[in-house]
């Protein structure tokens, strides 16, 4: 049984018609110039690529044969003892392809839920605070030029808050790497409203609006404890690592569609991480408060006040609330988290879109802090 094929010598593009047959451990190549016998060991068969012609390359030179696919070729290759590599056999069947697809999704999901957070947690403490500090300084300077205004709080009130803040920070040895880069900055931000931010470099920003909302300083300290949690747990560095990896993977997967698709999916995936970090910062605040002999309920009270304020504002000026959201997002991008109070009223859609938002529902956080304070002591 013979197979018609084309032979190319590798020195010119001339196409020679030949016929191929299998011999004992060798290939018989019959051409008008005579018969050639090529040992099987000297033949490299190309992998099947759909319906494209296959090639049989011969050792020592660029010569090869090209043959169309079909039962004759399969019979010849079988007689020569050629077997497809594992990957090619997997590629041949839809069942295997679908199993591979499932396996990819499982692997990616495992990386997203466990691998990446774990890796970031391990690496984050090794990211130098000095590097994060200089990035944060730039971000803070930018915000000072736009959204942030100078604080108008009386000097005395500020000194008192600062003193409490320092006492709070001193209670956690994990904050030592920040040294004197840890700072409390007073600002006013009428367009953002009551809020506080922690920049990953150690700068915590407290808005006058938040101080004015809480007459009880203890509640303000509870919020500052939450912000210190972001710093102590290195949420800034972790977020940087996680979002870089996610952006790289998203770009590899979706880069061909559009960069907007990459940006949207990166933001969606990152928001899941921020919610976990908010919970972690709440737990941390609870521990820090208890260490000072205070109750975690202070943070719950503070959150409740903020929530009520923002809900009232939203109801009052529903049309202007989108401006507030934009402002918060700006802060989020540069800092590692704010106290989050603007989100999730009990409105149906907001609940639906919980996985879209960077903070867990305030109601859920308050419940966590009140109902089960012991669990926070892990």
């Amino acid at each position, binding site marked *: 049984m013979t197979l018609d094929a*084309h032979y190319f010598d590798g020195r*010119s*593009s001339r196409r020679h018609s030949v016929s191929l047959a299998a011999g004992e451990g060798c290939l018989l190549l019959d051409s008008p110039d005579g018969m050639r016998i090529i040992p099987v060991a000297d033949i490299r068969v*190309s992998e099947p690529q759909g319906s*494209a012609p296959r090639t049989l390359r011969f050792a020592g030179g660029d010569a090869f044969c090209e043959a169309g696919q079909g039962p004759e070729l399969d019979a010849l290759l079988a007689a020569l003892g050629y077997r497809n590599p594992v990957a090619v056999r997997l*590629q041949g069947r839809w069942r295997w392809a679908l199993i*591979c697809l499932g396996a990819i999704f499982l*692997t990616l999901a495992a990386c997203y839920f466990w691998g990446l957070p774990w890796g970031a947690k391990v690496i984050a403490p090794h990211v130098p605070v000095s590097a994060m500090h200089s990035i944060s300084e730039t971000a803070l300077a930018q915000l000072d030029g736009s959204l942030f205004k100078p604080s108008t709080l009386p000097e005395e009130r500020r000194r008192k808050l600062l003193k409490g803040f320092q006492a709070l920070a001193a209670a956690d040895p994990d904050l030592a790497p920040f040294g004197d880069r840890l700072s409390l900055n007073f600002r006013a931000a009428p367009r953002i409203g009551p809020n506080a931010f922690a920049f990953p470099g150690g700068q915590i920003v407290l808005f006058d609006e938040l101080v004015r909302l809480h007459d009880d300083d203890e509640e303000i300290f509870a919020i500052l404890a939450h912000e210190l949690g972001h710093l102590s747990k290195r949420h800034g560095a972790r977020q940087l690592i996680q979002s870089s990896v996610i952006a790289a993977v998203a770009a590899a997967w979706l880069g061909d*569609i559009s960069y907007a698709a990459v940006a949207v999916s990166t933001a969606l995936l990152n928001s899941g991480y921020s919610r976990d970090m908010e919970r972690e910062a709440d737990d941390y605040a609870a521990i820090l408060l208890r260490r000072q002999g205070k109750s975690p309920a202070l943070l719950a009270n503070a959150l409740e006040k903020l929530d009520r304020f923002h809900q009232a504002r939203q109801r009052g000026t529903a049309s202007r609330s989108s401006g507030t959201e934009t402002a918060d997002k700006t802060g989020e991008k540069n800092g590692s988290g704010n106290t989050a109070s603007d989100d999730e009223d009990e409105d*149906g859609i907001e609940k639906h879109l919980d996985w879209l938002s960077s903070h867990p529902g305030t109601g859920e956080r308050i419940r966590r802090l009140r109902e089960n304070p012991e669990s926070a002591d892990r």
Partner: protein
Amino acid sequence: MNDADVLRKNISVMEEEEIARRLDVDMFSDEARPIAEEELEKKRGVHEKTGKEAGETVVYRLQFTGSGGEYFRIWIVNLLLGVLTLGIYSAWAKVRREQYFHRNTLLDGSGFDYHGNPKSILKGRVIAVAFVAGLWLVDNTAHAFYYPVLLALSPFIPWMMIRSFIFRSRNTSFRGLHFDFHGTYKGLCKTYLAPFIALIFLGWAMAYVGVMATEGRIRPGEMSLMMGGIFFLILLLTPMLLHRFKRFQFDHLAFGASRFESHLKLRSFYGIFLRAFVLAPALIALVLILVFGFIGFMAAQGFTMTGAPGHTGRIAIGVIVALIYIMVVSVQQAYFAALTSNLVWNNTRLDAHAFKGDQTFWGICGVAASNGLFMFLTLGLYWPWAKVRLARYRASHTAVLTAGDFDDFAAGAAKEQSAIGEELADIFDFDISL
């Protein structure tokens, strides 16, 4: 008469152009496609034979024989192996991908081939990743050094581009002969450096004007005037950059011992940009009018029923806007690439052979818009089909015009080449399309 015969009969009565068009937009079922391709070849073969007998120029069209389902299986298996080996296997996956697209591209019955060595590709990727990670580290830890480091590394960019061209062409073959690239570092710098530096300068000027405006040193009116001026200069410069780039690429390309020759005029590149940037905005404007008409309609519906458009309505509008955006972007990218490819092939020769590119706006629209739509709906899983459909369209609209056959090319001297340049170029997203 069995099914295949019925299909063949139905297809054979169609005009040549009709079959080609239906193949382009993927209108045939899996069983019908091979028959349609065969019939198309037969019809074209009649033309070719008559040409051959009269000693006239014969047109050989490229033919792409891959299918989306096949390539999906290759892609997904290789993707899994890549994920499981933490990316190491991706070099082997790349070779498989390139081989699939090369081997399934046929000219006069013979396939192209790809010979890249996975190990050298892996080596290139490791260096490329280290390079990018290093830059990232400098950017994030010692930002003051970022631009000096970038500047110090910039002489390597032309080198990487040359290496990438050489690697790619030497690893591509047809009928046993390899392509080659003869461009040099000096040559690339000479043709490319001046407009490139001018472009960087203009980019910097734009940023500077922006800073001045935010600091309030110039009025908004002045700013828009300056920005407009700079943007106009960039528009004037970009076609020039592409012209020089393509000329350099094709004037130094060789097949065996034969050199390609391109006669590309700068004027035609301005033509391309004009068509891509006048036609495309016109299309986008049309699309936007339709979208806003639709949003207005939705809003009106919402107001009559509930007083204001509901959240579901808002989400629906967002999805529709995103979808249209992706389709428009897909078409614009593919159309621009098609115009460039047509221009280059229609003005390039190889010995006595000439080339023809005849991709059309509507042809590209049909393929690219539906690709964008399905990519969006399947969250990117449609990618292999999209790639195959575009390859099929491009191949069937690229042809070689020859007075005889392809028997008379001779081999040149070929050497092994490292993949470092190509992988770096991959990451920095240079367009290298041969």
